[in-house]
């Protein structure tokens, strides 16, 4: 990943073990409570969640600024639109 600067998330949510589409709904609700420009950290399982949640976030207009592999899961940073 070519993205060096360190970004500190304003809030985080761990969605390991949470299924589609609840994981997306939880992400959406969390984002709704934040301010535009703030950054949310989301931990997602590999597979279906990683396939579906990022694209739904994109469809809602938010920006995924970082994706990182952590053991058996993925850490996403989302900037609220």
């Amino acid at each position, binding site marked *: *990943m070519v993205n060096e600067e360190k970004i500190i998330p304003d809030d985080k949510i761990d969605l390991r073990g949470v299924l589609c589409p609840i994981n997306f709904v939880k992400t959406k609700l969390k984002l709704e409570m934040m301010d535009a420009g703030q950054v949310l950290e989301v931990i997602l399982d590999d597979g279906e969640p990683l396939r579906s949640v990022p694209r739904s976030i*994109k*469809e809602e207009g938010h920006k995924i600024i*970082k994706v990182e592999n952590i053991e058996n899961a993925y850490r996403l940073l989302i900037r609220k639109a």
Partner: protein
Amino acid sequence: MAEKTATQRIDFNELKSGGFIKQNQKDLFTVRLKVPGGRITPDKMMKIAEVAKKYSRMGYCHLSFRQSVEIIGVHIDDFDTVVKELAAVGQKIASCGPRVRVPTACGGCEYNPNGIMDTQSKALEVDEKFFGIPCPHKFKMGFSGCPIDCTRTREMDLGFQGVVYPVWGKDLCNGCTLCAKACQEGAIVPDKEGRPIFDESKCVYCGDCIRACPTDAWKDKKKGWLVRTGGKHGRHPREANEVLNFLPDNKVDDFVAATVKWYKENGKPKERIGSCIDRVGLEKFKKEVVGAFLKA
């Protein structure tokens, strides 16, 4: 004997269009209603319910496998009134027999996140232009919005399935690997920097990579229809042949017209287009129908 008096009582042209199917029960028919693409307004649904309640002598409707509503057990004496009452909301009768049937379609792209092409408006358009044209045998068409192919275009005499061609631009890519994760076909593998290596031979043109990419490094270069011909179900199913990819949206009608014309010229009575293709050869179909669309 009943038949004879019936001829005098009903508008026979209406029967010939084929939407009235004889039942086991004496003088009772199934009235098959036209619901192109399976989309129906609440007004029509309410009218159908009202008519069915009055005229179904068996007390129910059936949702057919090709998305039409069937009113079961309509007495032959009631045909005229049923047709008239339904016409008040523009509800038409469907067809059966050797002719172009009502096309089926999935919900399409207006509200389905996977949809690539607008199946609903295409199904309506094709229905308006081609419905009821006599053919050697039945001729069924279907439209799927994307490669998930809910409409099962592989079983259609002529099927259209939405496709999108993805192109990647290196400038916007940040190497996040989400596209490789999104691709369920293994057509994208990340390189050492996480950037995609695209293997088009595995791509089914679903566009998941485009939807997943957070930086818009993947874009759609073009959209269109993958065309399949010769599919059928029934006693001896036959999977359709893929005959063309990325047919432009505005060429669909021409393709249907060319295929139906070819089928009428080449098909024997009671022969589906798939069997006809098996008999005369797919190459002949490709040369005489598909050829004209290849440079589109």
